[in-house]
């Protein structure tokens, strides 16, 4: 015999899935949204995205190399996904130092302190984003108005997002029908011609990304559908009760970060539940919390907070919500 034989327990073959493939699949699915915002916001989007991705990778590398002294795993693509998602949640004119601080919080605090990939209870990108929103509220809420591709960065013309127009307007006693004239048309909202974060503006691009991820079986339908569905049902109820102070479901779904959150943020593997039933409950929780924050809360937008709050419930759901097992006998009565 030439060389000793390998012995390992079965199975002896392995599928083609790998962490890298899944992570780069997510990156690819985010590309349409990125290109859409480059089209609408110009170089600002490129600068923000590049800064965020590079600083996330660098922080992960530095922490693994010098603090944890663990084997490097920056090739798995998870830092790129975090960086991209963080960037897509930011306005395109945010100062570079703020992005770097946000990346440090996302990677250093939300991810690596818990042990790196797979152990973080909260979505790192969202944790970074919420940290920035609370620490730098002005920079984080001055949204550049889309004006075609241009090269300006910090000095971009800023305006309000559709959600803040509605929120401020209702607070000031304006009626909804007046306000609806100020917000972008549905067509503009679908294509992304409105104020907002880099990644959240173009509904169409995000949905293309979702279809790609569903086709590649990177995500399942449960979380996005339950989030969007519960938002639609909840806002439809509010709208039917009082159409004068509540916007219609279509507006709620297209405005703000609902699609970005439902498709890319809430479906983050590490911080979402494992079993399909738990995924549906998790999604509905996010949807309902989002609407509650939007309608009654202090912030015009609530997706990030809703996802982070539901993240905290994931371990509980994983423990108590079990899939129905094969051959499980149904208890009578």
């Amino acid at each position, binding site marked *: 015999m030439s060389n000793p*034989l*390998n*012995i*390992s327990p079965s*199975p002896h073959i392995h599928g083609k899935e790998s962490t890298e493939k899944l992570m780069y699949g997510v990156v690819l699915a985010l590309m349409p949204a990125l290109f859409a915002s480059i089209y609408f916001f110009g170089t600002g989007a490129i600068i923000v995205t590049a800064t965020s991705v590079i600083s996330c990778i660098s922080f992960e590398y530095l922490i693994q190399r010098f603090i944890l002294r663990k084997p490097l*795993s920056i090739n798995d693509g998870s830092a790129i996904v975090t960086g991209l998602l963080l960037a897509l949640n930011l306005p395109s004119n945010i100062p570079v130092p703020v992005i770097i601080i946000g990346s440090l919080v996302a990677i250093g605090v939300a991810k690596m302190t818990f042990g790196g990939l*797979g152990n973080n209870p909260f979505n790192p990108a969202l944790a970074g984003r919420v940290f920035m929103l609370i620490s730098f509220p002005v920079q984080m809420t001055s949204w550049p108005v889309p004006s075609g591709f241009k090269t300006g960065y910090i000095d971009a013309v800023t305006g309000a997002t559709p959600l803040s127009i509605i929120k401020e307007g209702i607070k000031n006693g304006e009626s909804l029908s007046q306000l609806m004239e100020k917000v972008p048309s549905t067509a503009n909202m679908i294509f992304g011609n409105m104020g907002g974060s880099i990644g959240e503006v173009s509904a169409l691009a995000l949905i293309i990304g979702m279809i790609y991820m569903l086709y590649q079986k990177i995500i399942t339908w449960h979380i996005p559908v339950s989030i969007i569905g519960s938002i639609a049902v909840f806002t439809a109820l509010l709208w039917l009760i009082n159409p004068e102070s509540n916007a219609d479901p279509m507006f709620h779904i297209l405005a703000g970060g609902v699609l970005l959150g439902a498709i890319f943020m809430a479906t983050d*593997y590490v911080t979402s539940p494992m079993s399909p039933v738990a995924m549906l409950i998790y999604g509905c929780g996010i949807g309902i919390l989002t609407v509650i924050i939007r309608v009654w809360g202090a912030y015009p937008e609530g997706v990030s907070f809703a996802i982070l709050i539901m993240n905290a419930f994931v371990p509980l759901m994983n423990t108590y919500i079990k899939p129905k097992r094969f*051959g499980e006998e149904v208890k009578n009565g």
Partner: protein
Amino acid sequence: MLKTFPLGGIHPPEFKLTSGSPIKQLPLPQTVAIMVSQHIGAPASLLVNKGDSVKTGQLIASINGFVSSNIHSSVSGNISKIDTIIDTTGYRQTAVFIDVAGDEWVDTIDRSSELVRDINLKPEEITEKCRESGIVGLGGATFPSHVKLTVPTGKKCNLLIINGVECEPYLTSDHRLMLEKGEEILVGISILMKALGVEQAMIGIENNKSDAIAHLTRLSSDYKGITVYPLAVKYPQGAEKQLIKALINREVPSGRLPLDVGAVVHNVGTAYAVYEAVQKNKPLFERVVTITGKSVTNPGNYLVRTGTAVRHLIEAAGGMPDDTGKIVNGGPMMGKALNNTEVPVVKGTSGIILFPSDESIRPELKPCIRCAKCISACALNLEPYLLANLSARGLFERAEIEKITDCMECGSCSYTCPANRPLLDYIRLGKSTVIKMARQRNIK
């Protein structure tokens, strides 16, 4: 829409390289080592001594308890020694070593290839014949067949399911058997039906064996109550409970037997062995084994006597390729890696696969990303990530509550895991520990 089981399942690449190779008889080796334990249950008790001469088909070790099986000599010759040899369990076990001299069969065996269709034995006599002939489940589990044919009082069996799924990649022994011994298999099924007293039998065959489906469908019109059902290709459809779910849409309750839903499942190979035992009086001492692998020059299906060293099969297939890194006994999903080529073929050996060294090393381990792909791959809807974690951390009581003992070790979770986590390794550890714990509890 083809029938299949609804939950989980995977689609590993098939690599059925030998589906077109007719079954050939492997030349007799110089010596054989016949294990006295080739089945689930108690090892058979030896009847022969060193120096005895035996004939092909002679009983050399007899059944020892209800769940056990007779062992017959597969060759004629002299017993050179009774010693231990590393077998497919990975440990040294008792074996009878026989120096082959000629090939003289026991007189009672009908060696003609003529088809005998008339079934003359009564049901109890058929069960007794299977017991005598040492018939065990040839799908791989090697559970003694006479036990399955004995329906306990209070239970009712009304359906026989014949497993022709062969969902493991690479293996083709059942496929070839169905093509070449179709009539015999159908007679064997009729015998099993008579023994169980059932009117209906279903043969489940995966759709990637369309020639076998067509062949058996055509032949089965002559046999009363036997129908062939094509199934969608999905692993692990060959598992008893999954096959029952696919064919009659009933779930065998957790921890129970197929009989609890009125069905009994037998493999096509077993049906053929039953035919030979009952109609030809031939005990089980040879079986079809697939020898295959991507770099094997001459892969094929061979009729092999039990006790033949795996080395002879590899030689018949053109020798061991230089890049061989792993030899697997059985399918790539559930088979066992062998640590030498002297391991003898046993009743449960359905195939020998030689993996090139680059495919025989496990991919690099990465942290679990909680993608839940193991849950969606599990045909039993268990939570493999959780079970593996619990048993790695020694929390076996909780693993038991999470139904770790339901796991059938199909390996779909480890196959799917993008982080290459050894889920099944830990689940298997937990499962055996939990079974041990439960047994101790019962003693107390």
